[in-house]
């Protein structure tokens, strides 16, 4: 089903701001409706269709759950490719900040310093939220070029946040 719109699949408005509770509950509903246990006695065609539904729902859920991937998906629906593996140009000051955070996380992790990691998590969380706020405005005003730049940055913010959470978990 290549043309499945992820937002429609979960009955969500096609916007960057999203009600995570609705996303979660509609995802679980589709997962349980397409669970293999329900199709034990079904025809091969029905089994295949339910499997495809489950796969698409999983892909859609993973995409919409992550702010960066959600933004990139929204742009792709408008014909804009935000994530191009051949284009690694990012603003120098942005990369510098990413590198500083990465080094600080690494040092704190090596020193088993959970409170520094938690401070960094907060700092990175605030920066990520403010980027998401800009992105919300950029989408609202259809400023797609600015939205593309923000989306590319947001992927890094999501990644560094996920990694710091993993570090904290490891030390706890």
């Amino acid at each position, binding site marked *: 089903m290549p043309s499945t719109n992820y937002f429609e699949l979960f009955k969500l408005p096609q916007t960057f701001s999203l009600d995570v509770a609705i996303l979660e509950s509609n995802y679980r509903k589709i997962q349980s409706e397409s669970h293999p246990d329900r199709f034990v006695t079904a025809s091969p065609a029905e089994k295949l269709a339910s499997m495809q539904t489950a796969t698409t729902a999983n892909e859609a859920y993973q995409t919409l759950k992550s702010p*960066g991937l959600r933004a990139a998906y929204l742009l792709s629906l408008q014909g804009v490719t*935000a*994530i*191009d*593996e*051949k*284009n*690694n140009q*990012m603003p*120098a000051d*942005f*990369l*510098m900040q*990413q*590198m500083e955070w*990465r*080094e600080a996380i*690494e040092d704190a992790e090596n020193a088993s310093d959970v409170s520094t990691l938690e401070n960094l998590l907060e700092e990175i969380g605030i920066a990520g939220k403010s980027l998401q706020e800009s992105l919300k405005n950029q989408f609202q005003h259809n400023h797609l070029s600015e939205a593309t730049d923000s*989306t*590319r940055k947001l*992927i*890094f913010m*999501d*990644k*560094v946040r996920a*990694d710091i959470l993993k570090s904290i978990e490891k030390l706890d």
Partner: protein
Amino acid sequence: MAYSDKVLDHYENPRNVGSLDKNDPNVGTGMVGAPACGDVMKLMIKVNDNGIIEDAKFKTYGCGSAIASSSLVTEWLKGKTVDEAYAIKNSAIAEELALPPVKIHCSVLAEDAIKAAVADIKAKQSARATV
């Protein structure tokens, strides 16, 4: 996903991890990031007066293939001229490490880091030449 032996080797024993003095006029820094995965890579090269790369260091925060790609290029860069370094292609890195198609972009990132480091040292040198 299964990594090749060469990737694992560089991942487990990365060569030349670290930094050089970024304020040294003979040191060029290349910083790049891949929006496809959020990986960041910093590559630093120290170039002597004959234009030969004497030392190279890297720091990469990302997947095994990105770490291996940057570790490998630091080995390759030493002893090369900056122009030879600039000519290194990602396909050579990908081939050496037997990267699968989904990880080719990690080698692209390493090539971009070399080009950025070379551009930085050239900018520093021409700034010095005009003083």
